[in-house]
């Protein structure tokens, strides 16, 4: 095994607190496909960090390299200050909650949870106590002696969680653990997971393609694209100040307008002039992004008036109910549809087919150079 030898640039041991995860220029190839591209990432102890991105962005590969199921072709990985290069999964101080739970079908719930302790040759009486403790933590004590196949998805999820935390790893890795659950259960588990994490003070690295999930639970979100880190910031920043048009489009919905800047720095697009907070250098092309909830829609009193900024006229194509908000689809012509979301109280009563005017404030416009 050549990978056991530490490369000269990565010291074997660095003074970092327990639970710190550091990826140092990590790359991973699958054949001629670059899955992870010189990724630098530092997860602080006790932090809840989400790796967010579409499938194939390298987030699961990154997690598997932390777990030890894949080994990086370049770069170094340190967990709690120790290089884990070449270290097999069973010698790493991390545990994983798997996507499909991966509970052992031949063992009972209690035996599943106790599996990690059996491997560490912990005394049987202590195993029993700690299994009960872990099952209590996820409220699964009642099901201790059942087989996992007799449990519902949510219950299996809790068992998988208990099994992964019983070894008290300094880092817990979660590979889309809520993906198999239905929406309501998923939202409940999001809250429970977050509470559990703050109670245990464990570092959580959470992989998901669901931006809502990432935003609701994480201290910081790492948005990945094609094996690279697109933005690493807290949920508020990722949502409010996306670093790129890609992040803006991936986190929540966006209305994008592309155009060329005029003499005063406003963007001239096919559907009107869009002005943002700052001026775009004259003559350059840029992309403007406006969130649906920042767009107001009203019945159009008159037709489009020339020279109006940050407003468009169109025909209402449809209204849909999203629960606490109403979503309006405004057709602007050329097949371009503008999304607008208003909170239910005070949402304008409009019928499909109505002529409408949609407008927004310059402060809500995000500009990205193209």
């Amino acid at each position, binding site marked *: 095994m050549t990978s056991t030898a530490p490369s000269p640039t990565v010291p074997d041991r660095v003074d970092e607190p327990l639970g710190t995860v550091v990826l140092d220029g990590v790359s991973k190839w699958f054949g001629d496909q670059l899955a992870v591209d010189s990724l630098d990432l530092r997860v602080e102890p006790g932090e809840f960090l989400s790796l967010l991105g579409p499938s194939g962005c390298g987030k699961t590969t990154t997690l598997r390299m932390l*777990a*030890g*199921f894949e080994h990086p072709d370049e770069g170094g990985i340190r967990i709690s200050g120790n290089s884990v290069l070449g270290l*097999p*999964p*069973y010698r790493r101080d*991390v*545990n*994983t909650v*798997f*996507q*499909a739970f*991966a*509970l*052992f*079908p*031949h*063992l*009972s719930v*209690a*035996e599943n949870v*106790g*599996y*990690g302790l*059996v*491997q*560490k040759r912990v005394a*049987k009486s202590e*195993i*029993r106590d700690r*299994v*009960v403790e872990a*099952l209590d933590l996820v409220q699964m*004590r*009642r099901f*201790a*002696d059942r087989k996992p196949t007799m449990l519902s998805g949510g219950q299996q999820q809790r068992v998988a969680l208990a*099994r*992964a935390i019983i*070894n008290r790893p300094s880092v817990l890795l979660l590979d889309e653990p809520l993906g198999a659950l239905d929406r309501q259960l998923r939202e409940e588990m999001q809250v429970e997971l977050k509470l559990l994490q703050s109670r245990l003070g464990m570092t959580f690295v959470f992989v998901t393609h669901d931006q809502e999930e990432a935003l609701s639970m994480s201290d910081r979100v790492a948005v990945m694209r094609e094996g690279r880190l697109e933005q690493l910031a807290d949920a508020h920043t990722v949502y409010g100040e996306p670093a790129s048009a890609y992040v803006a489009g991936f986190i929540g919905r966006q209305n994008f307008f592309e155009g060329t800047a005029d003499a005063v720095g406003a963007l001239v697009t096919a559907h009107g002039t869009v002005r943002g907070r700052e001026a775009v250098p004259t003559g350059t092309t840029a992309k403007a992004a406006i969130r649906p909830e920042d767009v107001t829609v009203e019945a159009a009193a008159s037709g489009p008036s020339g020279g109006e900024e940050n407003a468009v006229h169109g025909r209402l194509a449809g209204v849909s109910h999203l629960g606490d908000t109403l979503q309006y689809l405004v057709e602007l012509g050329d097949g371009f549809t503008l999304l607008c979301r208003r909170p239910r109280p005070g949402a304008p009563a409009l019928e499909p087919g109505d002529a409408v005017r949609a407008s927004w404030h310059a402060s809500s416009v995000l500009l990205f150079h193209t």
Partner: protein
Amino acid sequence: MTSQITTPRPRQDASRTPPSRKRQGKWWLPKPLLALPAWAWLLIFFVAPVGQVLWFSFGYKPGIFGTHANDVLSFDRYAEALSPTFFLTFQNTLWVGIAGTLICLIIAFPVAYWMALKAPLSRRGLLIALVMVPYWANFLVRTIGWQVILAPEGWLSHLLQGLGLTNEPLEILYTRTAVLIGVVYNYLPLMILPLFVAFDRVELPLREASKDLGANRWSTLTQVTIPLAKPGIIVGCLLVFIPLMGDYITATVLGGARGNMIGQLVASQFQTAQNWALGSAMAVLLMLIILLTVAVAALIVWVASRPFAWRRRLVIGEDS
């Protein structure tokens, strides 16, 4: 907004009954009737022949030209069957059966493991085909092939002598060792295939979860992979052991006088001696021996695995 208290509508009306089953489908048969082909198959090709053999075994050979008669029923054929020759052959058969099954298991285990879990997915079809290729040739032809190889003047003998590994011609043919080589060769695919399927069903995430929880390769093999593959291992052993015990072609071709098996005794009673009654009694004894051996083997495995199972067992109970 006026609030209004509504009484909940009863969810179940007692008078409602599930719609009649007969109206649901276009045609309707009682379910046991649908299993008729399977029952008929079992009855005609298994119960009836075994019953007939059992019936014959209580009869006798009426004369030089008769094969069986049942007008006087007795256990005499069984007494006759349990001769010293039978015991010797029985010992031999059991030895070949158990050794052959174990050798097949030892060879097939790593092969099937590698095929199912390590070999590239794109090569699997080819590997399975390679396991099956010998089956395209006739059983007898394949066995005679070994006769050629193992003969004292065969190429293996010459090769070994040429390499200086032995000074004398190979004296394996017409011994128990030759029979053992033959049966392992002939029955190996029957062990590899069920083991392959069994290992294939042990999903990768389960083995990864095991390693993630601190189990090394060996612990993962013994605590996850083998327990989950257990049904396939049992099936493989039965698929090899049972036909092997009754096999007489391999023993006839490779065993000669020193490598006799019960199957040959049975066959000779039916074909050469024309004593169907005695042959039937021997066949019944063979079946009983196979059942007994399997039961004893199961018991041994069960008893041997108790300490391990007990050590792993963890019962929490419902209490507070």
